[in-house]
């Protein structure tokens, strides 16, 4: 297996990110986490040390860094206690979609502002009663002269409560069976755009989440990402990276939970000996450790494939659902070993438990992932 090329520069970046989360964020993180969002000043602080759009090209205000920087950033954010700032969504999903598919005008318009912390990006797909089923969405974008007239309602929009710019998934043709999906870039200052209240979430899996309403919002034609009807392709092209980031998050949480629990059970005495010395503890933690080791190797293999442009839809789906299920299992087992303290939110394991629940449902549920994998198996020709 080819090894990932982490250089000294990556380690320096890791150190800077770690210090940032420890020093700049630690004092207020608790309040922010309770609020489920961070103030705008936190985004600006993050921008100052280059945590916004690190992988975006320098011509658009990014740092032109490789994917490993995005990986490191997410790992360190989780290790520091997952402060409630939706960097992955902002950087890898929203800015990523714009950089890959946007016109030169759109890139120049959005990306520098997203990189300097002026604008926060969100992505609006799910709708009430529809979920993430692209074919069933009902938000419409009707062309009227040089503008689209956007009408509809979105929900569970991460970063949605604070966003300045939102990528909205809409149909230009609402006839039944039509699969014409479009991605429109919407300015949050546009007339007819309204937000609902901040949605309360179980954990930090989805942050700053809100319902968004579009009542005849006029969006310039130039704010269409890619060509008309290319939305599905754009979304399926960004699926490998999203799954990869979900995998990074899950594996990091597994490792972190095992570390916390090993330390805790070594010190915690029950009936005269440390919890870690009981065979049940040792066996469960051995299983968790083995699974986390295997998950990390699989994740690195997927990262290598992604870097080589070879990460398939099927493998991405495997990584996404499997690491999500594993992390839920492992974190739950780890919480158990903390006894009653594990149920107290002041213990990091309790927060990991909350935060990791989203893994199985957000960003494509486990069930959707299995459907994707099954498609690859559903071909008599694939058997020898």
């Amino acid at each position, binding site marked *: *297996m*080819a090894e990932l090329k982490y250089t000294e520069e990556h380690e320096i970046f890791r150190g800077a990110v770690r210090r940032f989360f420890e020093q700049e964020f630690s004092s207020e993180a608790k309040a922010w986490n309770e609020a489920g969002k961070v103030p705008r000043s936190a985004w600006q602080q993050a921008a100052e040390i280059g945590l916004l759009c690190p992988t975006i090209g320098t011509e658009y205000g990014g740092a032109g860094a490789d994917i490993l920087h995005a990986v490191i950033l997410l790992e360190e954010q989780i290790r520091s206690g997952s402060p409630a700032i939706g960097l992955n969504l902002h950087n890898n999903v929203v800015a990523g979609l714009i950089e890959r598919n946007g016109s030169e005008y759109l890139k120049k318009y959005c990306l520098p502002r997203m990189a300097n912390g002026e604008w926060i990006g969100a992505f609006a797909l799910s709708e009430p009663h529809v979920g993430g089923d692209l074919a069933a969405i009902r938000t419409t974008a009707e062309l009227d002269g040089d503008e689209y007239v956007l009408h509809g309602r979105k929900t569970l929009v991460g970063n949605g409560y604070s966003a300045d710019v939102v990528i909205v998934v809409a149909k230009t043709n609402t006839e039944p069976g039509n699969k014409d999906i479009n991605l429109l870039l919407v300015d949050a200052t546009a007339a007819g755009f309204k937000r609902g209240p901040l949605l309360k979430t179980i954990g930090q899996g989805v942050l700053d989440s809100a319902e968004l309403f579009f009542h005849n919002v006029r969006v310039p034609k130039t704010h269409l990402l890619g060509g008309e009807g290319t939305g599905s392709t754009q979304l399926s092209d960004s699926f490998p990276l999203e799954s990869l980031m979900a995998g990074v998050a899950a594996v990091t949480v597994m490792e972190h939970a095992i570390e916390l629990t*090993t330390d805790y059970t070594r010190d915690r005495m029950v009936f005269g000996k440390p919890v*870690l010395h009981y065979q049940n503890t*040792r*066996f469960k*933690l*051995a*299983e968790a*450790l*083995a*699974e986390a*080791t*295997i*998950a990390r*190797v*699989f994740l690195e*293999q997927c990262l290598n*494939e992604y870097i080589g442009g070879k990460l*398939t839809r*099927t*493998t991405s789906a*495997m990584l996404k*659902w*499997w690491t999500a299920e594993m992390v839920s299992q492992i974190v739950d087992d780890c919480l158990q070993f903390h006894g009653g303290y594990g149920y107290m939110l002041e213990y990091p394991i309790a927060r990991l438990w909350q935060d990791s629940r989203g893994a199985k449902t957000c960003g494509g549920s486990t*069930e959707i*992932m*299995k*459907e994707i*994998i*099954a498609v*690859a*198996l*559903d*071909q*008599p020709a*694939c*058997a*020898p």
Partner: protein
Amino acid sequence: MIPQSRYYTEGHEVFRASFRQFLTKEIMPYREEWQAAGQLPRALWRAAGEAGFLCTKLSTEYGGGGGDIYHCLVILEEQTRACFNEIAFYLHSDIIAPYIELYGTEDQKRRILPRMASGDLVAAIAMTEPGAGSDLRAIRTTAKRINDHYVLNGQKTFISNGQVADLICVAAKTSRENSSDISLFLLETESARGFKRGRNLKKLGCKAQDSSELFFDDLRIPKENLLGGEEGKGLHQLMKRLPEERLIMAMSAVANMESALETTVEYANDYSRPGQRLMDVQNTRFKLAEAATTCTIARTFLNHCLDLFIEDKFDATLGAIVKWWTTEQQFQVVGECVQLYGELGCLMESEIARRYADSRLGRIAGGTSEIMKELISRTL
């Protein structure tokens, strides 16, 4: 598609093609016969030796093939794909021969290894005892030095190849006081007095692989046959070898679950009840998606371990992790496949049923899953 290791070469592919031919001609026509007999015929070992399929990794200096662990992998993959999992060339070639090559005296190597490579000697290794499974320190077979001989007394069980073996590597205690004072002896069974083979034990699966009790009653072994010529080295020798043995178990487990998945996917695509293919049922799709995920991850991790092994970075913890996980997953995946086959999956004449019965052994042999977890937990 999982990328192949950079250490897997064109030469391995050529070797694969030639082993596949041997398997088709010399082995598969006799599968049922040998499984009914409960053991493999001696002639097979000679034929395999002659064709170059024994001791593929052993140095050419001692008659081996001078290959690497991928030759062992190729053989295991091919026999497993053909659903004849239990042919134990790997035991003879990749588990036992290395003990002699790595730890034997020059005389031992010259005397024994060429005959193992040719298939004239069939080898077994005898560690497990009725009262001592994976816990080597608890073995009770003793070896007492008397003049030029060691005199062995004791009993072994579950010994693969035990019915046919001409050379048995026996673990025995050379000191009563020290529980780690274990030595390995090369027992040449021809003309050995005081050596008796017990029954060929009937097993759930792996039917053509014989498994025996062995008895030593004042068995005399010449002192020249103490492995390496020095007492008390056995435990260390065994410990050093276990990670590779566990990697080999994992190779077999991964190959078996992949083959089970492949045939089950084919079955699910072909088999239909009125109006609906099995593959169109959501439960089928999800179970197969889960199995495909497990197989992909298992193969990725196995490749990772094989590369580390070749680079000499594979350790005991990884050995325990890869053995535990792949054998447990093998049993799980093959079990789900049996379920999809329905009653057909319960007939021993069906391939999937044999794969299932064979896979049960993986969680026990070569150190149980529980022992693997003990080993992993030591790193906590």
